[in-house]
Structure formats: C-alpha cells, structure tokens
C-alpha cells in the first residue's frame, strides 16, 4: 500500500451482527462450529459494559476479516495488571495481508488506554502458525511455565 492511500481495513468494536462471520472464521481455523460458545463470548466481551474487556473485529468492504479478544486482568498469577489476548483469528484466505497485525496493534492500543504496559498470551506449543505470528509481533517467552495434570476420576 502506498503512503497516504486509505487503508481499506477498519478495526472496530464487535457488533451482534458480526457473530455469524466470527463463527465462520473460527470454524474455518479450528474445523469446529461453536455458535453457543461465541454467543456467550459476545455477551461477556462484546457488550462494552466492562471496559477492561475488548472484542474487536477487522472489517474490509463490509466483510469481517478477523477478530481479536482480550482483557486487562489484575494481579493474575501474582503479576501486576496486564493485557491478555486470548483469541485472535483471521480468515485463512486473507492471511499475510497485515490483518492480524492491525488487530493486535488495536487491542494493544486499547490496553495502553487502560493503563497497562504489558501484553501477554498463552499458546499451544504444537501450533507453529499462531506461535510464529506472535513471535513476529515481538512477543517473547513470559516468566511463566504452564502446568497441567490429569484428574483422576
């Protein structure tokens, strides 16, 4: 894109009418349609009632190209308040066009406005695509080690 030309991609807050496209994007990435889950996420993160929660979409010519969701969490794991990105998705057919970068920048701007200076996420280590994306955006290993255990019945 040349300098000064209008950027066709616009990042804005999610609207209820975006939900079908978000469900489609997620299904295209994960291979699973989860309409009830996304309705609940919209209720929890997309109403704007809690300013610490952000649910943004990237729109191009009326089509939702991607979404990002996150929130500022206070003193989680004993750490000072920081922004957590817990979901980001871009239509597979429009990747490598900077949409993910725009979404991440927008949510980071939101976090900054809320007064935090750190953004974090947690990712599956067997998903190099999303790991590479966050690495390309400058994220480095955080001072945590995620642990888990099977629960005996």
């Amino acid at each position, binding site marked *: 894109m040349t300098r000064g030309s209008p950027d066709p991609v616009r990042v804005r807050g999610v609207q209820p009418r975006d939900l079908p496209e978000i469900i489609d994007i997620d299904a295209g990435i994960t291979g699973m349609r989860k309409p009830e889950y996304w309705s609940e996420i919209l209720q929890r993160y997309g109403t704007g009632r809690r300013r610490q929660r952000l649910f943004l979409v990237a729109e191009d010519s009326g089509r939702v190209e991607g979404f990002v969701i996150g929130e500022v969490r206070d003193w989680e794991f004993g750490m000072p308040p920081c922004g957590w990105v817990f979901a980001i998705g871009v239509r597979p057919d429009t990747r490598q066009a900077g949409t993910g970068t725009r979404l991440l920048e927008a949510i980071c701007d939101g976090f900054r406005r809320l007064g935090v200076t750190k953004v974090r996420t947690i990712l599956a*280590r067997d998903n190099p695509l999303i790991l*590479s994306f966050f690495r*390309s955006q400058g994220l480095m*290993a955080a001072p945590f080690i995620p642990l888990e255990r099977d629960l005996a019945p």
Partner: protein
Amino acid sequence: MKLQKNTLAAIYSVLEFAANPGRQLSAAEIARQYRVSPHHLAKVLRTLGRAGLLESVRGVGGGYRFTGNAKRLTLMDVIELFENISAPRRGARRPPRRGPLPAGPSPQEVEDALGVVLAEIDEISKATFRSITLATMLKLVTRRRK
C-alpha cells in the same frame, strides 16, 4: 539444548543472507564477519545450498545468494539440516513398568524420570525454534540494537 558449531555457523549465514536479499556473499565474507573458519563455512553453505536455501553464483566474485523465504523459514528448518533433534530422548516415552515395585527407585526408573524432565525441556526448545522465522530474528536484532 546446545547447538553445534556447524549449526550456529548456518544460522549466522542464513541471517546474513536474509538481511541482504538479492546480494551475493562469499563464504570468506561471512567467515570473516562471524570469525569462523572459511573452510568450515564453505561446507555449511554447501549443505544450505543442497537444501535449496541458497544458490551458488559462479564466476569472478562468485558466492551464494539467498533463495529461501525469510518469512517462512524458521530456525528449526535450519537446525534440522545439521542436527538430529527430532528424535525423542531415551527413556522419555518408556511405558510404566508392570509387576511388584521394589522399595526404592531403581537406576532405570531414575533415568526414565530424568528423561521425562529433559524431554519436556527439549519440547519447549523445539517449539521455540519452530516459531521463530528468519524475518522475526532480524526484527529481534533490530529491536536489540535500539
């Protein structure tokens, strides 16, 4: 995880090439810059060439030119050309023993348990190498320069 000299020389080289796309560089130039043996580096560059990451340029002032995709090529892609790090560690995937257990741990059990811990560390290292492309490494270099 400790990387061998060849692997490090390969990583230095591909980063040097990726930072100068289109430019041809000789083994001697890179060897001088990173203080490695030119003879050694020539072998490393041949391996990178055979893997399709570089193409050799013949004639006066010949050398190599980068043909990889810096946004796609990861550190792991380069490391795997020189090291066998995909194999699971010994003991890491051993099935649990059957039959009555002795009072204390046997040397084999201790070795197995340690294998599990070391395999965990290896998996994190591999995931890290798989997630960092050459383009990301170059950005990291730039960020650390500021």
